[in-house]
Every structure is written in structure tokens, then in C-alpha cells.
């Protein structure tokens, strides 16, 4: 696989390309619209949805407050049930652990359960360096992998593809794809089934993530729709699970809340079709060698941010992506990360740090702050609040040194807007400039007011696509004084 997010341009440039992709725009509008409607219907059925959201947020907050203790409890419970626990500070360490296990067992392939954590650390590419092939078994991940593509959605990584494009990818890339494969969804699923079954039966090692890790019993939980995850979790001899530190919940009763919140928010279902839980090794049943890699990779950095830490409540449902008007138009690739959309716009800077690279710094600005994400989030992450907070961290990281045009403009605006006399003076200047400019502008807005339709930079950033009403002869405060 050669596709990579490394070296992606900043959001505005990446978005420009996506916005010009007609097929992508159509696929996204259709898919997000469909999931939005499904979610709204099943969330609407639950009278106590707000109470569930509050409970979900509270459980996560309480757990994060004592994260160290819960993680140690989890480690002890896992070890007591025969699981080998590894701690990984970053992506490199986590990948090394998994690769070493594969190499130690002499396998040259692993089957994978859909997992965001392993995407985040680039595990497939790392395993390939050790001569180990990782087979994605989630249908959408398989489409992305076969197409040498990148995921563009957390839940539906191939959301940017329609079924005709999927048929073409299968015909081209899937060994043994049936002759005359059509774009009928059942036929496509059937082809993937045949393709994957052979791998399930053959593979000696599987890699998964986990949606939840219950500290008191050392239980890992994976929810999914296809049953392919269940195959990976039960058939191979060795199972390695890469689990983000924030996935821990203290007790089984906490799952009650999340197993209601998650399926309704993500797939728009009342209950997800497959819920797999496993608590250590069961002799004679399922994998006989279990490993858990507890992954930091920036999570403790995010935890240290008092406003931003709420992002660690995220249960990766994707509801925020599906309701986001920006995501709906640009798709996920523009965010340059396996975590796209509103949650990606806050999670990436929180995990990686701000002021490090331009692409990450551009993400908190990839939002109109409309608030639809906060409204949809099942664990009440106030994404607009975190976005604004991260913008201030980005600005602060670039203070000192020569100010950019934007910083200079903000300083000037601040000086003018902190004193009404200065503002009045500036408005007079605006009036004079406007009278000069409107001499060249003959456009009238509907209703008859004069318009400016071609301003030089930076005004062109507005007038390239939009008319601007010419400033009035008399601003409000001048009229009031009169």
C-alpha cells in the first residue's frame, strides 16, 4: 500500500481539490444524508437520550480523572486472565510490539478487525516492513485497501466511493473476483465474503482494536456490523489488540450506557449486530495467546489540556462527521488524517501538539463553528469550544517573530475596536474609501443598494465569490449623534 496522509497540504488547499470532485460531492451528500436521517430517527425514539449523554460524559470524565488507577486495574485484570500486557508510548513502539509478535510466531500474514488505533499508528505499513501482510476484513476497509486508497470516514472509511466505483475496484484488484460482477450490493458483499473467508480460515494471527476495555474484569469489547470481526477474534491462535489508553471503563455496568449511545449515534441502529467480548484466555476456545498493547501516542498530551481533554471521551461513533456541513462537502481526505471531520479537527492537534506543522494547525480552523457536531455528540464533547480554544493555542504558538498579515490585521482591529472614537474615525475612512471604490462598481444588490464586486486582496477573498454591500454614507453611530 502506497497511499499515505504524510505530506498532505493544509486544509484549505486539500479542500479545494475535494470541492471540485463532482462524484465525491454527490457520494458524500447522499451517504451522510442517509446516515443523518437514520440516526435522527433512532435517537428520537429514546426519551431519556439527554440523560444518557450526560451519563456517558460523566463516566468518561470520572475515568479520565483517575486514568492511571483504572489502567493499572485493567493491566492486573488482564494479566490475571493470562493476557500479556504491553505499554506503548507512541506509534513506533506499538508497531514494534505487534511486529515482534508476528515475527516470533513466524507468520507472514495477519487478519485485522476494523480498528482506528491501528490506522492511527500506521500498523499495516509497519508490518509490511517486516514482511507481514495485514488483511483488512471490514468490508469498507477492504475496499480502501484494495483500491490503494485512504480512509475518509471513521465508521465508513469508503464513504467517498459509490457502488459502481467499488465494483471497479473489486474487478481490478480482488484476486478471484467473480466474472461479470455487477454493482448490486448483495453481489459485492458476496464477492468480499468469498475473498475473506479463505483468509479467516488460514490466518494464525489476528490484530484488533477495542471499543471498550473493562478494568474490573479485563474484558475487551468490539462492536461491529458484519461478523468479520468475530471471525478474526475467534479463529486465529494469536490475537493482539491495540487499545488507546482512553478506552478503559471501570465496570461492566458502565457499558450499559455506551452500548446504547454508540450504535444509535454511529450506524443509526438500535443495537449493533455483533458485540464481541472476551476476558482473557479460555482453554480450548478461541485464541490461546492474547496480547494487549495499551497505546498512548499523544493521549496523555491531550489529557494535559484542560479544555481539550474532553475529546478523550470520544467513542468514535462518527455522528459529528455525518452532521458536519464542512465534512459533507470536503470529505475526509482533506483533513489529512485517519480522524477526519469535527472530531479530527480537535483530536489531531491535541494528539500531535500545535505549532508543529501547518497542516495540523489548519485543522481547528476547518469549521464554521455551527455547533451541529456538539448537538449530535453522544458524549457531549463541546467541539466548537475546543476548536476555539485550539485556535488560541495555534495563535499563541506563533506569537513572537514577525507577525503575519492576519496577526497584524487582528492587532489593528483590536486597537480600533477597543475605543469608540477610533472606531468612528475608522468608519469615516471606510466611507471615503467606499465612495472611491463604488465609482468603479456599477453593481446593485437586490433591493437597489450599491455593491462592491471586485476588491483587491485581501478583499478579493470575499468578492471572488460574493458581492459586498458598499458601506453606507452614514454609519449608525453618526446617524445617532445627529
Amino acid at each position, binding site marked *: 500500500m502506497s497511499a499515505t496522509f504524510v505530506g498532505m497540504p493544509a486544509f*484549505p488547499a486539500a479542500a479545494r481539490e475535494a470541492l471540485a470532485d463532482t462524484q465525491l460531492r454527490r457520494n458524500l451528500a447522499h451517504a451522510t444524508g442517509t446516515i443523518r436521517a437514520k440516526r435522527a430517527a433512532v435517537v428520537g425514539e429514546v426519551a431519556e437520550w439527554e440523560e444518557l449523554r450526560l451519563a456517558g460524559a460523566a463516566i468518561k470524565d470520572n475515568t479520565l480523572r483517575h486514568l492511571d488507577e483504572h489502567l493499572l486495574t485493567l493491566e492486573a485484570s488482564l494479566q490475571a486472565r493470562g493476557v500479556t500486557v504491553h505499554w506503548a508510548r507512541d506509534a513506533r513502539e506499538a508497531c514494534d510490539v505487534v511486529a515482534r509478535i508476528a515475527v516470533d510466531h513466524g507468520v507472514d500474514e495477519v487478519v485485522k478487525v476494523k480498528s482506528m488505533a491501528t490506522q492511527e499508528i500506521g500498523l499495516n505499513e509497519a508490518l509490511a516492513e517486516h514482511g507481514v501482510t495485514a488483511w483488512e476484513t471490514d468490508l469498507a476497509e477492504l475496499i480502501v485497501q484494495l483500491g490503494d486508497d485512504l480512509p475518509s470516514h471513521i465508521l465508513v472509511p469508503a464513504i467517498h466511493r459509490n457502488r459502481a466505483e467499488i465494483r471497479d475496484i473489486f474487478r481490478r484488484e480482488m484476486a478471484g473476483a467473480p466474472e461479470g460482477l455487477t454493482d448490486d450490493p448483495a453481489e459485492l458483499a458476496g464477492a468480499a465474503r468469498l475473498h475473506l473467508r479463505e483468509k479467516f480460515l488460514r490466518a494464525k494471527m489476528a490484530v484488533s482494536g477495542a471499543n471498550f476495555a473493562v478494568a474490573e474484569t479485563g474484558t475487551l469489547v468490539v462492536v461491529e456490523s458484519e461478523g468479520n470481526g468475530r471471525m478474526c477474534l475467534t479463529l486465529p491462535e494469536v490475537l493482539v489488540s491495540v487499545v488507546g489508553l482512553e478506552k478503559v471503563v471501570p465496570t461492566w455496568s458502565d457499558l450499559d450506557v455506551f452500548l446504547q449511545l454508540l450504535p444509535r449515534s454511529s450506524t443509526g441502529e438500535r443495537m449493533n449486530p455483533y458485540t464481541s467480548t472476551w476476558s482473557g484466555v479460555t482453554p480450548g476456545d478461541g485464541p490461546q495467546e492474547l496480547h494487549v498493547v495499551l497505546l498512548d501516542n499523544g493521549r496523555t498530551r491531550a489529557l494535559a489540556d484542560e479544555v481539550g481533554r474532553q475529546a478523550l471521551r470520544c467513542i468514535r461513533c462518527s455522528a459529528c462527521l455525518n452532521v458536519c456541513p464542512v465534512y459533507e462537502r470536503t470529505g475526509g481526505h482533506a483533513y489529512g488524517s485517519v480522524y477526519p471531520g469535527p472530531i479530527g479537527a480537535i483530536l489531531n492537534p491535541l494528539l500531535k501538539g500545535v505549532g508543529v506543522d501547518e497542516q495540523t494547525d489548519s485543522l481547528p*480552523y*476547518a469549521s464554521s463553528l455551527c455547533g451541529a457536531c456538539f448537538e449530535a455528540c453522544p458524549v457531549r464533547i463541546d467541539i466548537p469550544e475546543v476548536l476555539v480554544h485550539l*485556535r488560541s493555542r495555534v495563535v499563541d504558538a506563533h506569537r513572537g517573530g514577525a507577525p503575519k498579515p492576519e496577526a497584524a490585521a487582528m492587532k489593528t482591529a*483590536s486597537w*480600533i475596536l477597543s475605543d469608540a472614537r477610533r472606531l468612528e474615525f475608522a468608519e469615516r475612512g*471606510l466611507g471615503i474609501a467606499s465612495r472611491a471604490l463604488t465609482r468603479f462598481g456599477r453593481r446593485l444588490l437586490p433591493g437597489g443598494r450599491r455593491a462592491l464586486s471586485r476588491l483587491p486582496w485581501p478583499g478579493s*477573498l470575499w468578492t471572488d*465569490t460574493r458581492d459586498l454591500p458598499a458601506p453606507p454614507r452614514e454609519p449608525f453611530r453618526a446617524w445617532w449623534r445627529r
Partner: protein
Amino acid sequence: MKVAVLVTCINDALFPDTGKAVFRLLRRLGVDADFPAAQTCCGQPMVNTGYLDEAVPVVRAFTRAFAGYDYVVTPSGSCAGSARHQHGLVARRAGEPQLAETGPKVLELSEFLVDVLGVTDVGAAFPHRVTYHPTCHSLRMLGVGDKPLRLLRAVRGIDLVELPAAEECCGFGGTFAVKNAETSTAMGADKARHVRETAAEVLVAGDNSCLLHIGGLLSRQRSGVRVLHLADVLASTGEEP
């Protein structure tokens, strides 16, 4: 009841008629409101772009200008949202808790009319086909609900038609409109399409900033659709918009 009007910087500089309409409307309803001349801006452009230090002196000026009033009424859901939900952030940055004290007194126009004055029929007449866009900050940050629509429904002669996908953002988003101009325009193009689908003559909203964006697109498309602030419609009593 001491009432001040926060006209907002954008209305002051670009839409003085909306400011005048607010005063005309309040006077008709028996409210003698002040325009504290020391007012400038709520600081939102700086806060939302990440310039907190730059927002501090602006919010200081805001706090001084509106000290001593029971209510600060503003024809902007976005500026009311900024004062109520973001001045705390600026106060913490400055280490000046008093900067957060005026925020809770700021009400968006429809909130003041419906919740404080208890009116929905403000005696307006506007015989035109109108559609209404609920702006994101009034809808989701303030939760004004259907108050603006209740006010519009009581306007005499109005032909109020529903806007498809009304609750979706228009794409303005403050500096988002220029920092991510292409995405902003793509969002606005869909909003403008929905407006045209209604065959309305006038698009009404509670924020002139959003209308600056949607109106700019509608104008560029030669759609003929005019944009007007809710206050302009509610202040109107005659035949002409």
C-alpha cells in the same frame, strides 16, 4: 427597566438601517432604549480566530459601555452568543472576572421581545413572500427555538414559506468565510439554492453577518432575492420593504 441596544460593529458600519429598525421597533413597544456611544464590538472576531490577547481590550470596552443596564438587546444571535458564552474565556485569559459579568444580560432581539416583553405580535406589516434562515448561533448556542418564527407569523400580510434544510449552516462562520473561502462558498451555494427553491422575494435572518454571506451569493447569482434582518421586517409597517 434600563435597556441598552448593542447595535454590533457590523450593523454600525454596514447595516445602519437595522440599528434604526431596532430602536423604532422598541419605541413602538414602549421601550426607551439607550445607545451607549462607547460601544464598539463584542470581541468575537478575535476570539473565534484565536486572538485572545487582542480580544481583551475589546471586551473591556464592551463591559465599560454596558455597565449598569438591566438588559442589553442585540439584533444578532452570534454577538449575543459571543457575549454569553465566550466572555468568560476572555475574562480568564485577562485574569479579570468582571469581564464576564455583562454577558448574561445580553439578549438576542427575539428573546427580548418574546421572553421579556411577552409579545409576539409587534404590530408589523410586510406584504411579501418571505423565507427564514435560523442562524446557527441563535439556534444552537442560544437556543432561541421558534421565537423568531412566532414573531414573523404575526406580521400582517406576510407570506412565510419554509426554507428547506433550514437548520444547516450557511457557511459564513466569521473569518472562516475568508480563511476557508472555497468551503464557505460551497456551503453558501447550497443555502442560496434552497432559498431560491422557495421562490421567496426576501430572505430573513437574525444575523446580518450570515446575510452578508448568503446575500452576497444571491446577488452574484442575480437571483433577485433580497436579504433583510428580522428587525427590519418587524419594524416595518408599510407596503415597502
